[in-house]
C-alpha cells in the first residue's frame, strides 16, 4: 500500500515515555538510539509498527518504543511474530532478541521463521552472555568461558549466528556492532527494506558481565585491521589503507591475504545476491570468534517470496476459484438428507 500522507516524525516521536532501564554503559542504548534514528527516515507509520520480543535484557526493547509492542516469553518471539506478520501483512513487524533468547531456548523458532521467510526484521543482540540472569555463559560464548555456572570453564562449542542463519535458508543476513551507529542504521535500513525474514546479528557489549567481548575487533584502534566491511560488488578488503583482503583458499573456502602479496585481482568480489549461499557462508567462517578479522555488513540479500504473501495468494486463489466461503453451504457440503 502506498501511503502518501505519512506524517513527518522525529526520533522523539518513536520513543515511549518509559524510562530506559538497562545498566548504564550497556550497548543496548546505542542500538535503541540507532533504531529510533532510523525509523523517522523509513516513511512508515508508528501505528503500523510492532516490536515483539522474548525475554532477556534485549527483550525490554519494545517498552521503549512508542509503537505497538509485545514483551512475550523466553525464546518465543519469532513464533508470536510469525502469527502477527502472517495475519497482518500490512504491519512492519520487528523482533528484538538476544543470543540466549534466540539461539538457546528459542533456537527452533528462529530457524523456522528464517526458513519460512516470514516478513520479519530480526535484530539479535549478541553479547555472548546471559545478562538478565546475572552472568551465565550463552550459546555464543567462547569455549572455556568462566562464569557462575561454568566455574571451570564452559565446554560446549558456540554457535556462529551468521552461519546458523545461512544454514536456516535465511534470505537476508547481516552483522553490525553497537559502536558504529552509522553502520547500524544502514544495516537496519537494509534489513527493514528486505521483504521476507531479515536477520541481523548485532555485536553488543555487556559491560557488567562480559565487558570488552568485542573490544579486540571493534575497539577504535582495532577496527581498521579487524573489521572487514562487506560491500556488494566490491573487492573485499580492509585495513587503514585497504592493504588486507579476502581471497579464495582454493578449497572452497576463503583466506585472509595481503593485497600486496596476491594482487588486487585475486580478491573476492562480494556478491550478496548470489542464490548459492556458499560465499556468504565462507565469509561467516573467516573468523572463529571476535578476536580475528571479522566481516560486517550484509552477507546475503536474496529475493524469495515471503511466507505471508504466499499464504494470502493461496487464500485469494481459493476465493477466485470457488467464491468466498458461505457457512450455510459448508454445513451442507457432505451428504445431507431432509425430514419434513
Amino acid at each position, binding site marked *: 500500500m502506498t501511503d502518501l500522507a505519512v506524517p513527518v516524525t522525529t526520533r522523539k516521536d518513536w520513543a515511549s515515555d518509559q524510562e530506559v532501564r538497562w545498566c548504564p554503559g550497556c550497548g543496548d542504548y546505542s542500538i535503541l538510539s540507532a533504531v529510533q534514528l532510523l525509523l523517522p527516515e523509513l516513511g512508515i507509520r508508528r501505528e503500523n509498527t510492532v516490536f515483539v520480543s522474548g525475554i532477556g535484557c534485549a527483550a525490554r526493547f519494545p*517498552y521503549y518504543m512508542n509503537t505497538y509492542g509485545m514483551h512475550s516469553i523466553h525464546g518465543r518471539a519469532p513464533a508470536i511474530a510469525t502469527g502477527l506478520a502472517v*495475519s497482518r501483512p500490512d504491519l512492519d513487524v520487528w523482533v528484538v532478541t538476544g543470543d540466549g533468547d534466540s539461539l538457546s531456548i528459542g533456537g527452533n523458532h528462529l530457524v523456522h521463521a528464517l526458513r519460512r521467510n516470514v516478513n520479519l526484521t530480526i535484530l539479535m543482540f549478541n553479547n555472548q552472555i546471559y545478562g538478565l540472569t546475572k552472568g551465565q555463559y550463552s550459546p555464543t560464548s567462547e569455549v572455556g568461558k568462566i562464569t557462575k555456572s561454568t566455574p571451570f570453564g564452559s565446554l560446549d562449542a558456540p554457535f556462529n549466528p551468521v552461519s546458523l542463519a545461512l544454514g536456516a535458508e535465511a534470505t537476508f543476513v547481516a552483522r553490525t556492532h553497537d559502536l558504529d551507529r552509522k553502520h547500524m542504521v544502514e544495516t537496519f535500513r537494509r534489513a527493514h527494506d528486505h521483504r521476507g525474514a531479515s536477520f541481523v546479528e548485532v555485536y553488543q557489549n555487556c559491560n557488567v558481565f562480559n565487558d570488552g567481548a568485542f573490544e579486540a575487533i571493534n575497539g577504535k584502534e582495532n577496527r581498521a585491521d579487524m573489521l572487514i566491511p562487506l560491500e556488494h560488488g566490491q573487492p573485499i578488503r580492509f585495513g587503514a589503507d585497504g592493504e588486507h583482503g579476502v581471497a579464495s583458499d582454493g578449497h572452497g573456502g576463503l583466506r585472509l591475504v595481503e593485497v600486496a602479496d596476491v594482487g588486487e585481482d585475486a580478491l573476492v568480489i562480494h556478491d550478496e545476491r548470489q542464490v548459492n549461499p556458499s560465499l556468504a557462508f565462507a565469509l561467516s567462517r573467516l573468523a572463529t570468534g571476535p578476536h580475528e578479522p571479522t566481516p560486517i555488513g550484509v552477507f546475503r540479500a536474496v529475493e524469495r517470496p515471503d511466507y505471508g504473501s504466499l499464504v494470502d495468494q493461496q487464500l485469494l486463489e481459493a476465493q477466485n476459484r470457488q467464491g468466498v466461503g458461505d457457512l450455510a453451504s459448508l454445513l451442507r457440503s*457432505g451428504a445431507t*438428507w431432509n425430514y419434513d
Partner: protein
Amino acid sequence: MTTKSKLANEPGKVETIDQIVIRFAGDSGDGMQVTGDRFTDESALFGNDLSTFPNYPAEIRAPAGTLAGVSAFQIHISDHEILTPGDAPNVLVAMNPAALKANVNDLPTGGTLVINVDSFDERDLAKAGYEANPLKDGSLSAFRIYEIPMTSLTIEACKPTGAKPRDAERSKNFFALGLLSWLYHRPIDDTESWIVRRYGKAPVVAEANTLAFRAGYNFGETAEIFESSYEIAPAEHLPGTYTNVTGNVALAWGLLAAAHLAKLPLFLGSYPITPASDILHELSKHKKFGVRTLQAEDEIAGIGAALGAAFGGALGVTTTSGPGIDLKSETVGLAVSLELPLLIVDIQRGGPSTGLPTKTEQSDLLHAMFGRHGEAPVPIVAAKTPSHCFDAAIEAARIALKYRTPVYLLSDGYLANGSEPWRLPDVESLPDISVEFTTEPNATGADGEATFWPFKRDPETLARPWAVPGTPGLEHRIGGLEKQDGIGTVSYEPANHDVMIHARAAKIAGIAKDMAPVEADDPGGKARVLLLGWGSTYAAITAGVKRVRKAGKSVAQLHLVHLNPFPPNLGEVLRAYEVILVPEGNLGHLTRLVRSDFLVDAKVMSKVEGTPFRVGEIQDAILLEIERLGSPQAARGQSTKEAAL
C-alpha cells in the same frame, strides 16, 4: 434387539428389528474405517438414527494379521433416538483371525459372527496366536457363525478388471460392505457413486471396489446362507436438513462459524497430533473462508502464532491433545497476562505422557483448570457430543472475545472420531459474537492529553480494551510482566499485583453472570440420585438414565458445558440431591472441583480404559446408588449422620 418376523413378497425372509450394533473389524490395512464410514452414510441417508465409534491402533501399519494391527469400527443404528454406539456389538464382522480374537470377547452369547473364512489359514491363525482354528474347535459355539470366503469371492469378482489377485484382494472390505448392506437393507446407489468419486483417479481400483461391493450384495441375496435379512425403519426426526458429522469436523466448522459470527479472520496455529490433526486438515481445506492455517514447527509455536494473530485482531486458535497442552502452558499463561482472546482446543486422549494416542480419556480437565504457574484462571468449555462440538466452539469463542481471555475448549478422542446425525442449524439464527475494537483514547494522561490505557477495564465485564496494531494514537506495549492497573505499564508494586490478580480472577468468575442457570433433568422432581457429567460421557449417562427411568425409578441428570466458571446456581442444584454420582474418564477431576467448590459429597465413577462408558455400566451404577439409599427415611437419617460427621 427386539425382532418381529414378517414375510415379504420378495424371496427370502425379512425381519424388522428396532436397532442393531455392528462392529467391522480387520487388519488396519483392510479398510475397516472406510467400510464403517460408508455403512454410516448409507444408514444416515436411509434415515436411521445412529452413533459410531471408530477404534484403531496407534501404529499406522502394525505387522499385518497381528492383534496389534486390528482396526475396528462400531456403528449403532436404530428406528428411534439413540445416543451411544452401543455397549456391545450384535454382529461382529471379522476379516481375519486377529480381528476375531481381539473382539470376540465383546460379543454377547447368541451374537452373530460374519467371518472371512479365507483368512483362517495356518499362517494367519498363528499370527493371531491361535493354536487351533476357533472355527473348528467349538470355542465359538455360543454364536451364530457365517463363514464366507470373502477374499476368494472378491478376487473372482474382480477378474474382469484384470487386476492381479494380490491387488484385487484389497477390495474385500467392499465385499463385506456390500454383504452387510444387503443384510440390513441399506440403500446402495450412493455408495456406488461415492466409490467412483473417491477412487476415480485410479479407474481399476474404482472398478474393483464396485465389483466387490456388488458381489457382496449379490452374494447375500443369492447364497441363501442367511435365514433372513433385516429392516430397521427410519427413526422419527425433527424436521430439518441433516448431515452426519464427526466431532472434529463439527469443531472445525464451529471455528469457521465463530469467526464468521465475530466478523474476524480465523487464524489456526497448530502442530500435528493425534487425535486433533483432523481439525487442522479440515480448516486447511477452507481457504475460501479466508482462514489462515499454520502448521508450526512445534506445539509452542502453534499457540504462539495464534496469540500473535490475536494481538493483530484475529480469532486466534490452537488445536492439540494432551502432550501439546503440556507445551502450550507457558503461552496460555502469557495470554492470561496479556488478556487477549485465544482458543486452546484440547482433544483429550489417554495419558500420561504419550499414553494412548488413539484412545479416549477425559483426564486433562484439571490441567486446563490449574496447569499454569501463578494465579492464572482460564475459562473452560466442554463439548458433549460430536455435533455439539460446533456449538461449543462458538461458545468458547464468544467467551474468549468478550472477556479477552484464553479459553480451553475440551473435546476427546471419542467425540473427535465418533459421528452422529446433526440437524443443521439455521445460520441466521446463530448468535452474534462480534466485539468492537477500541479506536479512540480512553484516558487522560498526566499532560492532560487524551491517551490510551490498555488495562482500563470495562466496569461490567472487567475486560480490557482490545486495540489492534494499525490503530493510530493507541500505540501501546503489553507483556508478561505485571502491569499497572489501568495504564498498563510495567509495575512491580506489591499492592498493584494484588489488585491485578484479583481483577483477573474476578473477570473470569464473572463470566458465570453471563450464563443461563442450569436445571437438573429430573422429571417429577422425586429423584434422590443425581448423575453429574461433562464432555463425552453425555451419551452414555443420558442413555443409562433413560433405562433406569424406563424401569420405573427416579434419577436426575445434569451435564455441564461450562466447567470454569461453573454455572451460577450449580451449588444450589447439587445440594438438592442426596447422592451425586460423577461418571468421568479420569480419577475424579470434576468430582474434586465440585467437592471443593460446593462442599458436596460427590462420588466419582471412573473409567480409564481408553473406551467410553457403556450404558449398562452407568445403569448398574445408578441402580446400586438407588438401592443403597434404601427407603427415603433411612437414607435421610444416614445422610444427616454423615453431615454431622
